[in-house]
C-alpha cells in the first residue's frame, strides 16, 4: 500500500509566474514521457515479475515517480498561481485556460490528454526492462528540452534534480539480474 508523506523529495519553491513555461513542464505530468506514464508503467509491470529484486525495483522506482509527478504538479501550480485568463492569453496559452483554467490536467505540452498507450506491460522481463531503460532516457531527453526553454533558476534547480534521477533509474534498471531471466526463454 501507499502512505502519503506531506513533503516533496526536494523543496519546490518557485517565485516567478510563467503560464507558458508551466504548459511546457506539464508534459512531464501527463505527456508521452512523463512521470504519470512512468509510475503506471513500473507499478503495472511489477505484477508479472517473478524475480524479487525486479519486483522491488519496479515498486520502489514506480513509487519515486509518483513523488516526481507530485513535484511537477507543484511546479505547474506555483508558476500559474493567481494568474487569470488575460495572463494565460498573453503568454500564448489561452487555449489551456479555456479547458482547465488554473487546474493541473494530465496532458502533453502540445495538449494531447494522457494515454495509457504511452506504456506497455508485456509480462516478459526482457521486453519490460528494456522499455523501462528507454523510458528513462526519453524522460531525461524531455527534461533536457525543458532546460533549453527555461531560464528561471527556481525551476531549473528542480528540473535538473529530476533529470538526474532519470539517469540513476536507468542505471538501476540496467543492474537487474538478466541471468535469472533466462527461464523465460527455455
Amino acid at each position: 500500500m501507499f502512505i502519503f508523506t506531506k513533503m516533496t523529495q526536494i523543496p519546490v519553491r518557485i517565485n516567478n509566474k510563467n503560464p507558458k513555461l508551466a504548459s511546457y513542464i506539464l508534459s512531464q505530468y501527463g505527456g508521452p514521457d512523463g512521470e504519470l506514464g512512468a509510475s503506471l508503467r513500473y507499478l503495472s509491470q511489477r505484477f508479472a515479475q517473478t524475480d524479487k529484486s525486479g519486483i522491488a525495483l519496479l515498486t520502489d522506482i514506480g513509487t519515486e515517480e509518483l513523488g516526481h509527478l507530485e513535484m511537477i504538479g507543484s511546479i505547474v501550480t506555483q508558476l500559474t498561481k493567481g494568474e487569470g485568463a488575460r495572463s494565460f492569453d498573453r503568454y500564448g496559452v489561452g487555449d489551456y485556460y479555456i479547458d482547465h483554467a488554473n487546474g493541473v490536467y494530465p496532458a502533453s505540452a502540445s495538449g494531447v490528454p494522457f494515454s495509457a498507450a504511452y506504456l506497455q506491460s508485456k509480462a516478459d522481463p526482457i521486453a519490460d526492462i528494456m522499455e523501462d531503460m528507454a523510458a528513462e532516457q526519453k524522460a531525461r531527453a524531455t527534461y533536457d528540452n525543458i532546460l533549453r526553454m527555461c531560464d528561471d533558476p527556481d525551476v531549473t534547480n528542480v528540473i535538473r534534480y529530476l533529470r538526474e534521477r532519470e539517469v540513476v533509474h536507468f542505471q538501476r534498471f540496467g543492474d537487474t539480474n538478466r541471468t535469472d531471466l533466462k527461464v523465460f526463454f527455455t
Partner: protein
Amino acid sequence: MENNRQLTAAQLMRKVSEAMFYVTDLNLYLDTHPDDTRALRMFAEAAENAKACTEAFEKRCYPLTVCSAECDDNWEWLVGVWPSQKMS
C-alpha cells in the same frame, strides 16, 4: 541534533529531504545488490538518521505522515505545507 532549536522549518525540512534522499538512493541500489555489506551498513545508518530528522521536524513543525498527527482537540493533519503549496 542538539542545535536543532536554532533551525527554521525550511532548514529542518532540508535535513529531512537530504536524509530521505540518501535512504531512497541506497534503497534502489540494494534492490539489485542485496548482498553488498558496505551498502547495507550505509543503509542502516541512513535509515536511523532519516528517522531522527523526521522526528525533529515533526516535533517542531507539523506531521509528515498521518500517524504522527496529534488529535487532542483538533485535527493536526491539516496543518503544514501540502505539496501543492510553497514553503515560505
